[in-house]
């Protein structure tokens, strides 16, 4: 459902993405790892049309993101996104955070949107927090609300940008469990993370990026057991220590 063809992107003179090629099939789970500054987050932002790219092509369901005729807003409804620092709307309750887009974009009625939101809160395990404000939730709870907010638009694909790296260690598991649940339900997923346990459990493919390039890719086992490049070996050695 996502095709990335030879995409390159520059911030001024600095090249953040260099000839990135990737195809994500429907239902596939792809984990992207690599050192910070390697272009992982930028790649996700490009896929959601949040950043332009200068060369190459990204197609979502066959529609090009760089075509000026493409309605990016419409396309973004298909892809949900979860961020490192949760990014819940601080002035709205958990319930309103989740129902805003369904009500404004999909024009759902409030009761319908709220019913759906409650079901999603059940799914992420915090139905009792509907009336709370984000500031009164723990990091793990906020991230689960963020996942529910993205799911409320019934996306075909979910992208996660280091969803657990801003969390205290004891909260990482609760978020990962929600993500594993999603994976088991067949969601197409693109996940930037350093949680290698998660990667091993759900990933159909693991991509290692460095300096804007895809250095290595492989299925879960193959990637961990037989990394090909020295750069990947060094990186894995670092984070699996």
């Amino acid at each position, binding site marked *: 459902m996502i095709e990335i063809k030879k995409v390159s992107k520059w911030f001024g003179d600095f090249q953040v993405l260099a000839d990135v090629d990737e195809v994500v099939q429907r239902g596939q789970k792809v984990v992207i790892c690599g050192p910070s500054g390697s272009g992982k987050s930028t790649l996700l932002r490009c896929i959601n049309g949040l950043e332009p790219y200068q060369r190459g092509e990204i197609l979502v369901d066959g529609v090009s993101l760089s075509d000026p005729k493409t309605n990016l807003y419409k396309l*973004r409804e298909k892809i949900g996104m979860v961020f490192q620092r949760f990014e819940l709307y601080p002035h709205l309750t958990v319930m309103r955070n989740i129902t*805003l887009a369904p009500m404004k974009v999909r024009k759902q009625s409030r009761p319908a949107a709220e019913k759906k939101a409650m079901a999603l809160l059940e799914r992420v395990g915090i139905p009792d927090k509907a009336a709370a404000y984000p500031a009164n939730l723990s990091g793990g709870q906020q991230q689960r609300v963020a996942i529910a907010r993205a799911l409320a638009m019934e996306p075909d694909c979910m992208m996660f940008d280091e969803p657990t790296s801003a969390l205290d260690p004891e909260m990482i598991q609760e978020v990962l469990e929600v993500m594993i649940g999603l994976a088991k339900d067949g969601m197409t997923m693109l996940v930037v993370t350093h949680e290698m346990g998660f990667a091993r459990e759900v990933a159909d493919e693991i991509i290692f990026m460095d300096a804007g390039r895809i250095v290595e890719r492989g299925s879960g086992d193959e990637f961990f057991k037989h990394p090909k490049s020295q750069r990947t070996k060094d990186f894995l050695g670092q984070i699996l220590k």
Partner: protein
Amino acid sequence: MFDAVFTNLPYLLGGFLTNVQLAAFALAGGLFLGALVGLGRISKRPWVYHPVTVYVNFLRNIPLILVIFWVYFVMPIFTGRSMDPFISAAVSFVVFEATYFGEIFRAGFQTISRDLVSAAYSTGLTYRQTATYILVPIAFRRMLPSLITQSIITFQDTSLAYVIGLQEMVRRTTIVDSIEVRSIQLYSFVAILFFVICFIGSRISLHYEEKSRKAKVL
């Protein structure tokens, strides 16, 4: 000792009502236009950013009284008919205050992280929806103390409309004074009235500042 004030109280308070009405228009229009100006000031589109920036910098560097004169005397040349002082003053205030409110909103928008905006877009919200439901409400709440302070200044400035003959309280006080010749009590009364209103306003502003510091909600 406030005899001249009491005999002319309805007349003076009628003038005060004009100040209040003018301030109400100025605030409603100034906040609305100010929010748009603030959005323009953070826009990445040059054809939005540059005109708005020129407008803001120009008006912030000329005295309000000049804007009032300009609208009152110059606008009729373009529109072909003379301006009602109240409408003319209201237009001046909206156009002028919007630049100050706009800069406050801009500061508020700049406290909002790029990823929060991305999160809104990623759920399919349009720019307009994101501005309406996310950017403006958050900036408004975060900047509330500054907005209240600027509102107080706006309220005080409404008395400047007397220069184009608007029958607001200061104007009416000069009229009463020219008949009664009781300058001290008359102008003291006006001062007290303005002081009370503005002092209450600044207390409210302080209250919100404390509240947001304690709550840390935003």
